[in-house]
């Protein structure tokens, strides 16, 4: 379980698996939090993040953030 500390609208996250520390903004932290509940497709992730909003725009944004987080080793992408 990662350790997170937050100040204003920025967050530092320590990932015990890699030993790395990351500086994250609100959106990135929301994506991570939304995926705590379990894996999701882009559309499901968008629905978790912003149930009231138009899904495609949020989904694109969430997918791009999720890709960045995956590159940092904080998320895994299902190749299927």
């Amino acid at each position, binding site marked *: 379980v990662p*350790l997170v500390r937050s100040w204003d609208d920025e967050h*530092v996250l320590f990932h015990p698996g890699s030993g790395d*520390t990351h500086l994250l903004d609100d959106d990135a932290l929301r994506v991570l939090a939304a995926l705590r509940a379990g894996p999701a497709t882009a559309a499901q992730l968008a629905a978790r993040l912003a149930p009231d909003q138009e899904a495609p725009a949020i989904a694109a944004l969430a997918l791009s953030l999720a890709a960045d987080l995956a590159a940092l080793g904080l998320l895994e992408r299902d190749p299927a």
Partner: protein
Amino acid sequence: VKVGDLQPAQLRARLRGDGLLLRTGPYAFRIRSRLAGVADGIARMYADFPLLDGRGFVDFHVQVDSPWNAHRLFRPQVRFLVDGVTPFLPLPLAQAYPMLEWGLNWCVSAHANDHLIVHAAVIEKGGRAAILPAPPGSGKSTLCAALVQRGWRLLSDELTMIRLADRRVTPLPRPVSLKNQSIAVIRDFEPGVVGNRPVADTIKGTVAHIRPPLDSVRRADETCPVGWIVFPQYEPGAATRLSPLPRSRGFMRVADNAFNYSLLGGAGFEALADVVDAAQCYDFTYSQLDEAIAAFDALAAAEVPA
């Protein structure tokens, strides 16, 4: 009894014999050396340090000597041993004293894992510490040397030790290391400062050490909480400027400057986060030492934020 109470011959005899027992902060060192440069440097730099008797526990057994090798005749060298091990390559003999200081820093930074150790100067006023992390060339040591000549207490000029148990800074008052132009800058700033002879051509350029203030040595057991984290940057001709820095950015930069942050894992993260939580973070640009000191004094005079 203090180191400065010993006659030069007595000091040399101790260094050649069973060793000189010095305490700095929580650590006791037994120092042995036959080199005149080491004895002279210790006499000037550690005069105010208490002399320990031979019965207490010693954390590090340290020796600085000139090895008997092929270099000895033509290019005499010096080496640093701790508990019989040489962690560094030998250096030219003229660098014996700086090597002792670097070696003592290494002993602490490589072993004191009950602390988060940050490569930073740290000073105290009004019961709060200011941490000054910075890469070489940022003017950290110059600023630190000037502040401790003007009423700030020296906790360390090189190793900020944050105790994991309570997030307080453990003092490690030792000589302040100055490099290149800083040596003349501080001599002009405070002509009364006690320094040793500059040593040229080291890996850091010309280095000299100055004696830590007496008050800092006397209060070496007084830990204190962190009030500020200030990232100094010397910029010729620049106006004095103190700009608030988001805590998250301050956190990342301190972590980058910590020796054992990765080693400590989650415990280091939590300790640093608690420190950053309670501190104010700033970027600080300066060119005039008097103005820089006024800016720090204003910080110290301000109310503790709720």
